[in-house]
């Protein structure tokens, strides 16, 4: 097994908590946070359920101590909120002391502001400052500024696998010696745009999402941001840093099957997991817990389940669960919050329950773990799949 890249800090804000500790507490105590939508006015308010961050925009402005003239989108605010936590958690005081980069991820960037002001820009000059928020890179730009990073800053947008890919790029940049330190993760605020987009695809559930259940009806959307600090072994050694866990494997592959749907046999997912095992030097049987993508859409869970069965062939599939019943599907942030949950699983030796599960799927014999379980966890595999057949797998290991 290869050593992997050190994770030395984490930060998160989601519907189940405004810090790593709060999120972990909710996971342990089955406090899910799927509710009716409060911060966005939508005609679907009585039908859909979402995982909404409890803070309003003005509370976030206060938390971040932004000026009244700021032009932060909600996506940028929750991103900066989580990224600052991560940097603090990693004990970083001088951000540019080492070659430091930021790899962010988002699906619709500052769409929350664009959709709010779209037709008012021409009549209200005060709103013009928000036009530039639409750019996907605006979020990373703002986070970099908040953190004072001067260096390699970029953004990945591959729909729902985005943050997995930002972690992957970050690990690769450290391994290649291009950077000493990189802050990686993703952020997405709820927006009318995505709510309606998923509605047109008819994959939103009007109930609580039930991953891997035979009667699953679709997903609940959520909003979140999470960032991790990755550092080279040289920096870890020099600063005598505590390593929370390591990114030991990663893989991205394309299903090349359909614009939005996953293939029947989960080719892309299978290839992504296979690559991650190759990179890590681990075998499927080394995995103690799989944090599945498990969005609870009919298509995803079937395709992902089949891909997992292909990876494990005759072997026993390890304990697995989807944490999306807690948080909803947070799109480009999903893989980042699930990376935080994976690290916490390793640190604390827990398998999270796959809430809302009742009936096994008829297509195969796969049952997610439905209650909290304590056991030693050395390696966690985390899947994230997105539109455009984008499939990513990360493996996290005990340091």
């Amino acid at each position, binding site marked *: 097994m290869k050593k992997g890249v050190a994770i030395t800090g984490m930060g998160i804000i989601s519907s189940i908590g405004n810090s790593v500790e709060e999120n972990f507490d909710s996971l342990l105590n089955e406090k899910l946070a799927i509710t009716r939508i409060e911060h966005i006015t939508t005609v679907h308010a009585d039908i859909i359920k979402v995982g909404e961050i409890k803070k309003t925009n003005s509370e976030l402005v206060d938390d971040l101590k932004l000026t009244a003239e700021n032009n932060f989108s909600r996506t940028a605010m929750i991103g900066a909120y989580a990224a600052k936590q991560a940097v603090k958690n990693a004990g970083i005081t001088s951000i540019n002391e080492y070659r430091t980069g930021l790899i962010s991820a988002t699906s619709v960037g500052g769409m929350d502001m664009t959709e709010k002001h779209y037709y008012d820009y021409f009549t209200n000059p005060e709103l013009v400052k928000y036009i530039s928020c639409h750019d996907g890179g605006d979020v990373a*730009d703002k986070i970099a500024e908040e953190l004072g990073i001067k260096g390699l800053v970029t953004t990945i947008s591959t729909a729902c696998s985005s943050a997995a890919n930002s972690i992957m790029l970050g690990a690769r940049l450290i391994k290649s010696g291009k950077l000493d330190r990189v802050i990686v993760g993703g952020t997405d605020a709820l927006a009318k745009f995505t709510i309606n987009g998923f509605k047109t*695809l008819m994959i939103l559930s009007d109930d609580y999402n039930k991953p891997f259940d035979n009667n699953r009806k679709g997903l609940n959307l959520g909003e979140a941001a999470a960032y991790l600090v990755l550092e080279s072994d040289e920096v870890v050694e020099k600063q005598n840093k505590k390593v929370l866990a390591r990114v030991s494997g990663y893989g991205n592959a394309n299903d090349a099957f359909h614009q939005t749907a996953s293939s029947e046999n989960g080719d892309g997912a299978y290839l992504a997991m296979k690559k991650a095992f190759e990179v890590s030097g681990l075998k499927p049987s080394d995995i103690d817990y799989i944090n599945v993508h498990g969005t609870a859409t009919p298509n995803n869970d079937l395709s992902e389940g089949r891909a997992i069965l292909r990876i494990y062939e005759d072997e026993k599939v390890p304990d697995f669960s989807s944490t999306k019943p807690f948080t909803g599907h947070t799109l480009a942030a999903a893989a980042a919050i699930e990376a935080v949950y994976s690290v916490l699983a390793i640190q604390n030796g827990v398998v999270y329950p796959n809430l809302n599960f009742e009936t096994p799927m008829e297509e195969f014999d796969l049952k997610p773990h439905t209650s909290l379980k304590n056991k030693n966890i050395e390696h966690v595999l985390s899947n994230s799949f997105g539109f455009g057949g984008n499939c990513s797998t990360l493996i996290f290991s005990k340091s």
Partner: protein
Amino acid sequence: MKKTYINGVGCISAQKTFDTIFLEEAVENNTETVLSVNAPVYKDYIAPAAARRMAKGIKNGIVASALALKDANSENVDAIITGTGLGCIEDSEKFLKNILDNNEEFLTPTSFIQSTHNTVGAQIALNLKCKGYNFTYVNGAVSFESALLDAKMQIENDEVNSVLAGGIDENGDYTISLFKLAGRVKNELEQPFNFLTSTTTGAVHGEGAVFFVLENEKKDTTYAQIVDVEIKNNLEENEIEGEITAFLKTNNLQVSDLDAVILGYNSDAKFDSYYKNTAENIFAQTPQLYYKHLCGEYDTASAFALWTASKIIKTQEVPEILKANSVIRPAYNTILLYNQLSGKNHSFTLLSK
């Protein structure tokens, strides 16, 4: 460590570049504030049944990538890495307007699906049945360079042998009107626009799709080697020279070793000073080239610059229309590209024969 070679190129731009040798048919337009692509006949490249749902940007991306593959005598690649500032913005506009105009009713999925930033890279993969690595970068003016950096790193690490890397952006009417409102587009009344001596703010905008086949070995079709790519989110004007000198030094070069420098002048006087300062100082004795008067400013316009640099190194010819000064060299073997947008997202790309 393996080297990265540009072995095939495909370019759709505001100029006729998809079936030309180089820029022999290029025409400078100094009256329009927004340049549109000179489009190929899509039906020659994409079956109508497949094209019926495709946004303009997807079509341009598919054609540009098909041209690059053909140019490289390749049929497929190990990875597809795309850069785009705003993705298929026309479909984003359409979906958002439908939401707002119809009070969230009677919406159809097609424009939502296309609005996803990675839709171009995904459609290229779907067309080629390419199951390899597929990333899309969306970070303003370094979207394309992020793709290049990623591709180069994976080729160097021997993770892949070949990559299709490209930059694509399209104009959207409403977005352009918002850019105009925000002062990012030149005022029509100020034409004719002169990119090198502009004293007014705002840029001439454009769109395009440029793809490259990058491989780890030299072939008959090779244009140039990508020696290095560097991205910096923020630099002050007075830091540019030092940054460039240091970048060249890490590659064992100095300014006098450069046979040309390609600068991203976009006619916005407020930020063109970043280029002008270097042009008047460290690059005073270096052939200076510019290109956005041909393709317009857009987040991935620098992919057009890489296309011109590749062509120059391969043909050893510098079209007059690109020249920003009169310095010439007997040969063009080493070229530096420097680009930024509004003082942010700086990139330095070094090419050699």
